[in-house]
């Protein structure tokens, strides 16, 4: 249609803009910074009107949270009033046989899919916003900012809370699963701490800085094929002077995750809540897919907190494999006797092992940096933990990112036995609520796979993870390490060796674990 319709009411006299002379935004370096991580327009999901309407709807997130909300309150309730048999209690069965495994599947496929439907943060957010889905202008709580002194450790704080939670879980045998009431207390604890943080701090400070799963979901999730909500045209974002996606508008909240679609280079910080999509007045935000592993390989900015997080998470999952071996049992028993600690797991060997694991990863990276770094490299960027640059970090950060697929595969493989052995128990557990089934039910004893096949599957998962890691590491090395290293073949060989050694170690541990069983 050849129309001369005036889109904007430009004739309206408003003297304020006349006096506003904003500086032009800096555009230098934008292309270099974002070209590798930018999304492809053809992979925009919100191109489809139906999807766009669905996501534009304010009830979108509510209806994702609602089913999980119901399930988890049922979990809490059944922990108190249901059967004490963890295999037959719906609460423990759904949480540990199905949910925990599904979360990992969602991470690897999507990214922060769990975050958009999480009933813990979701519940606290309902209260913080004083609504289930509406856009309210006044929030409940103190609305403080998380202190910069702590927040500078970014994704390391969630790793620490994950280590603490995992230790508690092992100590009380929550995920074993043990007594269902322990699971109830764990869920209540998480919801209560989420609520406290949501009441004291603004936005999703809890999810970004505290939630035990945040770093794991974020880093492993970067393998995922959903890029999150990103800008369609960066120029529109750069010249935007109101930034409704960050501050919020009448239609949507400002980003609860402290992310700007205009500069997002990975799905690490995107909670998929769609608020930026709703609030952008230009319709310049879209939900994009990406090729798997893109957010591992592509981001130009590597984060030291994420790198250390991956090293520690790797240490933790190796610990969880190692603790099933006879050697570990002997060490733990000896330490408990010596330190008069009542039972497994001894905190000293727990932390010790994880720290050794992380130290191994970082130590190897350090050795690689010593062996291959160009002598001409100079680092003149001092600063605090999050912004400092050094020769070690130049190597450690890319190498740690390259290990993400192995770490992800390892966590996933670690959850497989419970799912493959016991997930059919969910059916009798549901029936048991209504008084129908018992431990004699045939489904209760049904397994999807035998132990031998389970180990085979675990090793296969590790092999796939190792291949993904090798590919990522090769791409990362080519882009980020070759230019700063002497001996190009040497750097390729050593990063590849790190991947293969990690893969082999985890695969072998699964075989040994099986032998120990």
């Amino acid at each position, binding site marked *: 249609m050849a129309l001369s319709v005036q889109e904007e009411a430009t004739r309206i006299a408003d003297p304020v803009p006349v006096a506003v002379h904003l500086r032009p935004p800096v555009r230098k*370096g934008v292309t270099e910074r974002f070209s590798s991580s930018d999304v492809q327009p053809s992979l925009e999901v919100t191109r489809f009107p139906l999807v766009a309407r669905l996501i534009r709807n304010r009830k979108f997130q509510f209806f994702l949270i609602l089913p999980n909300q119901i399930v988890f309150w049922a979990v809490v309730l059944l922990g108190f009033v249901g059967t004490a048999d963890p295999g037959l209690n719906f609460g423990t069965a759904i949480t540990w046989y199905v949910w925990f495994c599904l979360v990992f599947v969602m991470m690897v496929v999507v990214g922060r899919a769990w975050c958009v439907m999480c009933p813990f943060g979701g519940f606290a957010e309902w209260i913080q916003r004083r609504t289930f889905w509406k856009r309210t202008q006044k929030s409940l709580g103190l609305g403080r900012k998380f202190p910069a002194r702590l927040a500078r450790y970014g994704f390391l704080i969630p790793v620490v809370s994950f280590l603490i939670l995992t230790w508690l879980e092992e100590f009380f045998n929550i995920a074993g699963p043990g007594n269902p009431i322990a699971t109830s207390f764990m869920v209540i604890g998480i919801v209560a701490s989420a609520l406290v943080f949501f009441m004291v701090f603004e936005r999703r400070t809890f999810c970004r800085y505290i939630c035990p799963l945040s770093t794991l979901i974020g880093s492993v999730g970067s393998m995922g094929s959903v890029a999150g909500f990103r800008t369609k045209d960066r120029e529109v974002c750069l010249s935007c002077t109101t930034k409704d996606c960050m501050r919020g508008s009448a239609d949507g909240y400002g980003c609860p995750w402290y992310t700007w679609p205009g500069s997002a280079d990975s799905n690490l910080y995107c909670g998929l809540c769609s608020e930026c999509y709703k609030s952008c007045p230009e319709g310049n935000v879209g939900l994009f897919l990406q090729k798997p592993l893109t957010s591992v390989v592509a981001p130009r900015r590597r984060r030291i907190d994420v790198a250390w997080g991956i090293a520690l998470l790797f240490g933790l999952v190796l610990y969880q494999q190692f603790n099933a071996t006879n050697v570990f049992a002997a060490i733990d028993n000896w330490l408990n006797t010596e330190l008069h600690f009542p039972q497994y797991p001894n905190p000293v060997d727990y932390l010790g092992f994880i720290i050794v694991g992380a130290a191994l990863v970082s130590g190897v990276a350090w050795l690689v940096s010593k062996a291959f770094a160009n002598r001409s490299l100079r680092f003149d960027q001092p600063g605090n933990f999050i912004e400092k640059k050094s020769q070690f970090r130049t190597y450690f950060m890319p190498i740690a990112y390259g290990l993400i697929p192995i770490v992800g595969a390892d966590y996933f493989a670690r959850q497989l036995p419970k799912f493959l052995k016991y997930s059919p128990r969910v059916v009798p557990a549901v029936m048991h609520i209504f008084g129908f089934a018992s431990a004699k039910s045939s489904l209760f004893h049904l397994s999807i796979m035998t132990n031998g096949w389970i180990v085979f599957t675990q090793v296969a998962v590790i092999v796939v993870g190792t291949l993904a890691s090798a590919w990522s590491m090769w791409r990362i090395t080519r882009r980020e390490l070759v230019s700063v290293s002497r001996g190009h073949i040497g750097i390729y060989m050593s990063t590849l060796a790190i991947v293969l050694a990690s893969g082999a170690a985890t695969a072998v541990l699964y075989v040994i674990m099986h032998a120990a069983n």
Partner: protein
Amino acid sequence: MTVLDTAGAAQGTQAGQTNGHPHVSIFADRCAGCQECVVRCPEEALSMNSELWIAVADETKCVGCRQCVRTCPFSAITVSGPLIVTARTAVTTQHPARIEGDVSETRSGFSTWDEALAEASRCLSCPDPTCVRGCPAHNDIPGFISAVADKDLERAHTILRRTTLLPDVCSRVCDQSAQCEGACSWSLAGGTPVAIGAIERFITEQAPVPPLAKTSSAGDDLSVAVVGAGPAGIAAAWDLASAGAQVTVFEKDDNPGGLLRWGIPDFTLPEAVADRAWDQLRAAGVTLECGKEVAAGDLDELLSVHDAVVLTVGAGVPMRLPVPGGDLNGVVDATSFLHASKAVLDGEATLASVLPLVAPAAGEAPQVDRAATAGAHRILVLGGGNTAMDVARSARRLGIEATCVEWLDRRFAPVRPDELAEAEAEGVEVRFLHTLVRLEGGDGPAPGTATAGRSTVRRAYLATTIQESPTTLPKVQRAKPVEVPVDMVVMAMGYRNDPDFTKVLPGTPLKRVAPAGVPDRSWMASGVLAGPASPFAHSRPVGTLALGREVGIQAAALPFRDRLFAAGDAVVGPSTVVEAMAQGRAAVRSLLASQPRRPGRPTVAPSRVLVCYESNGGRTETAARAIAGALTGRGAQVTALPLKRVGARELAAADVVIVGSWVEGFVVAGVHPARRARDWLAALPHLGGKKAAVFCTYAVSPKAALAEMAAALEKAGADVVAHAGFSRNGAPSDAVGFARELLALCWPAGVEAQRAQAAAAGAGGTRAVTR
């Protein structure tokens, strides 16, 4: 730019501040590289680290104004350290040595260019100037300050004239601490703002405000009546006259100026300044009819002989405190007292003839030392606001002891701080946290008064109050009230609108209302709404106050009835000179654009069409665009916008409003316009006879949805001329047919042809007609 730059830093050191620059820390974890701070930093101290894509600061350039802190959406910047700015150039306040009878101006402006230039150099010329938002008229403050810095007074006046007609008045009477200066970056950062008012006054004192000049011919054939000659009336008459219109102003007093003349005493606003605008208006040929009161019932008659009427009658009904004894002889309102005191001080009347109760006995001269006469002439002023100060200070100039009683806490009272300080310096006693409980009369009537027969007020009883926060009302304490001897009581607690006029101005509040909902996006981004209010503004939230004033300007831009506009206090209730002026200009801008014609004159076809739509799947939008396209082809100026982007401003700029929505619901249970459209329609402002049309898109049946939309528009005062429903299976030509029907209704045949010709001659042409 960099007005201050390193020089400013050096002067800052001289001014006794620390040598170091402020420390800026940008929090790399949370900085998303959005550059909101970079584009707004007045000193170009912020740039981007292109590798990490976060902002970086050059602390040697930073002056500590903290605009980055206010505008960062994720609170990722903190600034600590001093404000690098020179001390504010002081202006002097002169209290007469002998106050009785002296009406010379107390406040003075800058007397030398050096002072003005020193103060102008303190301005940061912020890229997103918050002061401009703080100013109700939105003067381009950095603009005229930079003109002063260049010693270019002509440019300064040109910049001022774009937004204000009364710079000489506003610079004297505005409470800058709650407006521009309160919203100055330095003020928001906790410092002392640029003396914007003093610089504006300096401009008008160095070069007189230029006379009225004809600047357009938009109103050449219009005849407009303006009712009321106060600040809003001045602005309306001025803009109408400069557009070529025939203006007749009706004023009930004997002199024009309204509040400027009698409401603000000469020691704050000298008569010469108050009269300047009217001298220029009369010189430009504006007809002024003084002593002619127009009642609300006379408006129809006025509208029949004029093309349009602008109602600027103000809010002049004084509020009275209902206390026992409030009807005693000697209890008067501020209006009568100020009128009387002005007459006495101007030498037009004697104290004994207008205020016999407080007049000294015959032969006795006013005395400086009141103690000698043992408090024989005391007035009690109820209220602690600016009017109360004016009353009390006028009383002091008449030689009368004055005590103000204000039930609010001193910290929260709505009084100009400088005004209060000056009043106290002149010997006015202001008792905060006190309230009047009752008045008691004395023995017999006062001699020579018209109301002889009633007893005269002699004693006031005051109770103490307590107020905990600015948002709570004070509580009256139970202790025994204190007796205070008085000769006269002046109720100066404020004014309210004349109920007769509020009836003809639908939707006007008696009191000020705060805006609801989301503030304008650009206001949020500017940072004026963020952070704690500054000490300079006495903890008043200047940004929120400023945003509230926008409501009044938008209300004035819309007609209240066909061809009837209103502005000033009549619309928003008691407010300020500058707001009244800004509203007067807004009303006239709309008036001129709508080309009103009185009965009997050939009407002009409406030319500005606003098509607004609430679309979900896109069908309503398509229909809206088809209608817009068809109308554009016929030469109308069409704007198509989604409903959520249509506010009072957009409505004010349209002659015809076409509203479209999809419908929801079930045929059996009732079909309604979409929820958003219903909410929008329910919140419509007054549309004063604007032509309107409604349409909807539906799947099965629109049922009563169209009638519902039409009823909502009619309730707002619109004249709904057409409606149409487009079914799912309908063709795009349905919309074009509807547009054609609209054309026939809104654009009479002859005029349409004329319009089409005009459009064909201009850009755009009639291309879309043949579609």
